[in-house]
């Protein structure tokens, strides 16, 4: 459960960001641009007292503290990851259950899903952003739409095998109504693979959000997200690699942690393993 541990640490970093740095991630300081990590700066507060702050990860081309931006950026990334996973699983589960259990709607629903699956998240995001304004909600919608068919396909395939199980037939034989069969017998047995899938979706979503922000079609640049920080640091990458390096490390670590959590959950939720627990 190393993955869960790393993820917990990153989550708490995001939540406790104001406590971890006195600096405002949005504060621009033209005099203090492009400093290397570890540079110290003396700041004069409004009342005249001087304090020395250290830019642990340097500053970017607008003089903003990269450390502050990275830890605040965890908020956006994790929000996107969790929201996308939750929304796409919730919608996909419902559609998948219906498509898998009621054979007559299956063909129609699945062809529609195939259509959705063909839409690339990045193009959809560009289209949505150009239709309205850029923002967190648009990014989430853009990533959720192409993820739903993946969830639907998974749920449907699991449901297709479960509906043939004798225990489902036994439930029919004792007169259990169809909605109850779905909730009592089918749903609990689809949860295990679904939770695992959800973690992979979360990892993908965090990555796509970073890509969208990097391309400038995601969350607006004043909001710190790992993608934004990297996009900002792109131009001076050869001279000041820290602008891309640190958010990159956090991004890689988070995605790795989520994937490890998914693998761990898969092993734990496997019925063959749960016998031993």
């Amino acid at each position, binding site marked *: 459960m190393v993955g869960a541990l790393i993820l917990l640490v990153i989550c708490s970093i995001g939540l406790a960001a104001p406590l971890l740095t006195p600096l405002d991630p949005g504060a621009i300081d033209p005099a203090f641009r492009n400093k290397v990590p570890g540079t110290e700066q003396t700041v004069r507060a409004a009342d005249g007292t001087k304090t020395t702050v250290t830019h642990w990860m340097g500053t970017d081309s607008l003089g903003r503290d990269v450390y502050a931006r990275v830890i605040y950026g965890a908020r956006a990334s994790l929000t996107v990851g969790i929201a996308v996973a939750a929304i796409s699983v919730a919608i996909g589960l419902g559609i998948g259950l219906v498509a898998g259990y009621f054979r007559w709607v299956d063909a129609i629903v699945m062809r529609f899903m195939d259509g959705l699956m063909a839409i690339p998240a990045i193009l959809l995001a560009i289209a949505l952003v150009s239709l309205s304004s850029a923002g967190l909600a648009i990014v989430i919608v853009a990533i959720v739409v192409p993820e739903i068919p993946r969830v639907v396909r998974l749920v449907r395939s699991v449901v297709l095998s479960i509906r043939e*199980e*004798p*225990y489902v*037939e*036994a*439930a*029919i*034989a*004792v*007169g*259990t*109504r169809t909605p*109850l069969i779905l909730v*009592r*017998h089918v749903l*609990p*047995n689809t949860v295990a693979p679904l939770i695992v899938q959800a973690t992979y979706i979360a990892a993908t979503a965090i990555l796509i959000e970073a890509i969208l922000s990097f391309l400038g079609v995601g969350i607006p640049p004043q909001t710190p997200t790992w993608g934004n920080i990297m996009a900002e640091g792109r131009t001076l990458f050869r001279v000041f690699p820290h602008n891309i390096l640190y958010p990159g490390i956090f991004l890689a670590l988070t995605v790795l942690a989520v994937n490890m959590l998914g693998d761990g959950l898969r092993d734990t939720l496997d*019925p063959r393993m749960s*016998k*031993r627990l």
Partner: protein
Amino acid sequence: MSAPVLEVRGLTVTLPPDADRRLAVSDASFAVDPGEIVCLVGESGSGKSVIAHAVMGLLPKALAASAGEVLLSGENVLAASQARLRALRCTQMAMIFQEPMTALNPVMRCGDQIDEVLATHTKLSPAKRRAKVRETVRAVHMPDVERMIASYPHQLSGGQRQRIMIAMALVLEPSLLIADEPTTALDVTTQAQILSLIRELMRARGTGVLFITHDFGVVAEIADRVAVLRRGELVEVGTMRRVLTTPAHEYTKMLIDAVPSLTPRQRAEAAAPVVVRAEGLCKTYVRRSWLGRAGGDIAAATDVSFEVRKGETVGLVGESGSGKSTVARCVARLITPTRGRIVVGDADFASLSRAQLRALRRRVQIVFQDPYRSLNPRRTVGAAIVEGPMNYGMPHREAMARAHELMELVHLPPAALDRYPHQFSGGQRQRVCIARALAMSPDLLIADEAVSALDVSVQAQVLALLDEIRQRLSLAMLFITHDLRVAAQVCDRVAVMTRGRIVEYGPAAEVFAHPRDDYTKSLLAAAPGRHFAFGRAAG
């Protein structure tokens, strides 16, 4: 007497530390002579497959042979290197498995698979290898040799696939053949053919055979000597006739007594009212394509008629694919019959609407074959039992009280109600399934191969339970089975099915003693160990 082909001396195999017992096999010793068939008999988990795999050098890493030796023509297999083992397999010892479909490579032609064995172990030229393959396939009595050689495994029947496996095992004329439940997945008539084939080939080539089985009928049919295994211990070794007629060990005696006899029990003719009557039942599966019917309809059941009276058990007997399960599922209305009537009381089950059906569902209940899949793994057995009654409005408290009674009725501790299915053994799960069906107070209980997946001793217990319940509640029972022995013991009347039709229907005693239909005759003639009177205790 020549030296034994295989000699196992004090073989001990240790299980991983978290297993239910310490040793998979403890101190097992026996020998197989050339041209002799030694049957290793035991229930599931007795360690019989572990012995077979130890001999082949195929033990999984988690299991280790900690003591003893396995001598194959004098050479200790346990001490042999991987390279030596590879050389020994096929040339000196060969193995055939229970499920020939999974043991054969699905994307390789059967002939090529046999040829591969030759190419690996001999330096014969391709032309000679081809001739040898043809000769071997002919030796296992395959019709149309050329076509069989060019076929893929899925194009053959189960029996033909097993013949290919045997041909593959014997192509290099090994001195030892290990057969791990080779006929368990086959129908009785096919089983009889495979057994006689194995016998014939052994006699002709002087191969020693270690034959693993759980079925005493098969033992009586094929064995020269028998070794009985219980939880890793060899409890008895002796000649077949001696072990089957005068078993020395209590366990052997219990196993043999648990085998149902082929002679039906005498039952009083039931004059009770008819509970269920099937009239001209048909179920046809239509193959559909995008453009409507694609043709090639499959008639799973055709014109099936029978009736079940109160307190009576009617057996539907047949081989796989005979349509018996289709009929069972039609009667329970899990599938809708294409034509015909199923009269339960005064309602026609076949034509009821969904709403009407729901109100009447409780009158017909079904127990399935696979005890591992018929209970939802994520719900307690208590929840499974009370589900039905609560669907029909019984309050939870009352339903739980009834579940307590039912658990006692099926001889399980009522305290086990809040346990999950995986905490029970196969036999116990089947009892839970019976309790779940009885919770509905049905008029008719359908047992669809309900004891087929169970060990013979557990099977005897579950059969006794079913019989007890039938008498106590004077329940009507429709008993679906492929096992003639079970049918003989349980059923008052039997209907023999083949290719979706009932070919013979009458009192069990009558059908078993004087079969009229040719198919019934061949079925009875194929029953393994039919010359042997089993189950004296049960009768």
